């Protein structure tokens, strides 16, 4: 984006600039990738103790332990995936009609409604979870999967609704009109024309909701634990118990989808949708 204003060839000192740059980038890379590399080492470390700076033995026995039926990780992984998928389904079921209405129909207080979905992201939410846990305890939702899903939905809705609204606004309304003109009903036109066109944007919002749910710790901690074990909770308890191998493998299980999906989102979330988010 910035062309070199003083071409390097004409300035012999330019090569020297790589020394401070190299030092700064090297330090940055060390502090960004060092902790990640450390995590990878722990996942395959069989024996690693003070004062050795690298593991003494490598192997996959911790992986076998994690994925053994009694390891607890499979249960947490299954729970996390079930909760995340249900959260996506519920969020999209709520967000698709809401997003369509916000994008297409004339709504009173439209700006305020959009802002309302931001509230759970904009306030410190710890006290809210504490009180949700109390309400859920009374209606017996505490420690159940539906309870955890509901908490995650309230948090994921901002992504679901905002991105769905943007996805619907980015579609030309005349296409839907054309379908209506050749005799399709309103619902039919929505289902056959608008929804498929909005699919990439909705996919992106689903990914955001999925990741938000997978990574959510505080809500799962207050509403789910100890009955519903999820990956972030397993990571916390194994790390607190000093089992760095299991904790690191769990961390890796949480890390990989985050990185992979973010790369996918960049492809799904096109500029025309992005430019309409929050408008």
């Amino acid at each position, binding site marked *: 984006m910035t062309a070199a204003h003083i071409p390097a060839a004409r300035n012999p000192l330019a090569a020297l600039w790589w020394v401070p740059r190299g030092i700064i980038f090297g330090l*940055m890379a060390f502090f960004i990738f060092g902790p990640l590399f450390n995590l990878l080492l722990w996942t395959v470390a069989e024996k690693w103790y003070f004062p050795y700076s690298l593991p003494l033995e490598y192997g996959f026995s911790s992986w076998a332990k994690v994925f053994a039926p009694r390891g607890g990780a499979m249960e947490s992984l299954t729970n996390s995936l079930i909760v995340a998928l249900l959260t996506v389904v519920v969020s999209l079921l*709520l967000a698709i009609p809401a997003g369509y*209405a916000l994008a297409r*129909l004339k*709504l009173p207080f439209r700006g305020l409604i959009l802002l309302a979905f931001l509230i759970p992201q904009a306030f410190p939410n*710890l006290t809210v979870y504490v009180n949700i846990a109390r309400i859920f305890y009374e209606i017996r939702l505490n420690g159940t999967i539906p309870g955890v899903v509901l908490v995650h939905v309230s948090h994921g809705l901002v992504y679901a609704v905002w991105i769905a609204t943007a996805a619907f606004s980015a579609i030309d309304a005349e296409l839907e009109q054309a379908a209506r003109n050749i005799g399709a009903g309103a619902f039919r036109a929505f289902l056959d024309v608008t929804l498929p066109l909005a699919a990439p944007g909705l996919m992106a919002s689903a990914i955001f909701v999925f990741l938000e749910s997978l990574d959510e710790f505080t809500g799962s*901690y207050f509403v789910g634990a100890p009955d519903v074990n999820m990956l972030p909770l397993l990571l916390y308890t194994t790390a607190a118990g000093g089992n760095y191998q299991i904790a690191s493998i769990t961390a890796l299980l949480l890390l990989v989808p985050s990185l992979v999906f973010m790369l996918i989102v960049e492809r799904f979330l096109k500029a025309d949708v992005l430019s309409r988010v929050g408008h």
Partner: protein
Amino acid sequence: MPKRLLGLLLVLPALAVIAFLFILPLIMSAVGAFQVEGAFGWGNFTKTFDLYTKDIVFTVVIVSLSTVLIGIASVAIGGYLTLGEHPVAVAILRWLYRWPMFIPFIVVGQILRTFLSKNGMMNNTFINLGLLTPLDAVSFLDWRGIVIAFVWKQTPFVALLVAGAMASINRDTIEAARNLGASRLRLLLEIVVPQVAMTLTVGLILSFVTMMSVLSVPLMINAQSPTMLTADIAFRVNSYGDYGVANALGLISLVLAASVAWIYLRASLKERA
């Protein structure tokens, strides 16, 4: 059916979820903070200030310090991406800085815990390079660890916003100042940063509020005293079932977050006037 009514009906279920699962508990928390054994009073707050004044100050200092450091780092990154003169260096930085953004807070807590500890990889690397002796190695798993974790995780997010805003400002003023001989640091601080001040503030406020409510990082990195309010709230609820003091602590952290948002609102009103 009139279109407005249909629209409201379509939005209503989603709004109901927010109302029942967020706004209602939030009100309950505010009310609960003033309830002592069924009656209204200030009891929870006197108890909170007796027990946790140190932690309140600690939280404010940690989060403010982290916010300042995130601001400086993201301006530096955004500034280099905008004003950097070597395309390869700019490309390297653009590729490098984003990675921590996608990593969940709980994973950040775990990996920095192993990285920053006394015999963690950071100290080991410095010892192997001969920059440090084993006797001088110290653990960073205290307030410094929390600050490092926050800065590590939040800087990419703010830098992304700031770099985006910087890329869209009019380059004519930058070129004009450059032709008059201004250094790049001066360009950044006197021309570029003032034009993206609003975006920077929004990013920093969002980060401030996020950091105020993160529970996993203080639990993983520094669970001893003094610690952050979030860890205290979890402790009050889980160990004592004491919702009164937990709600009072929660309300205090809400007020702290709201006061930051208020500073922002005042600044933005002034800017428009």
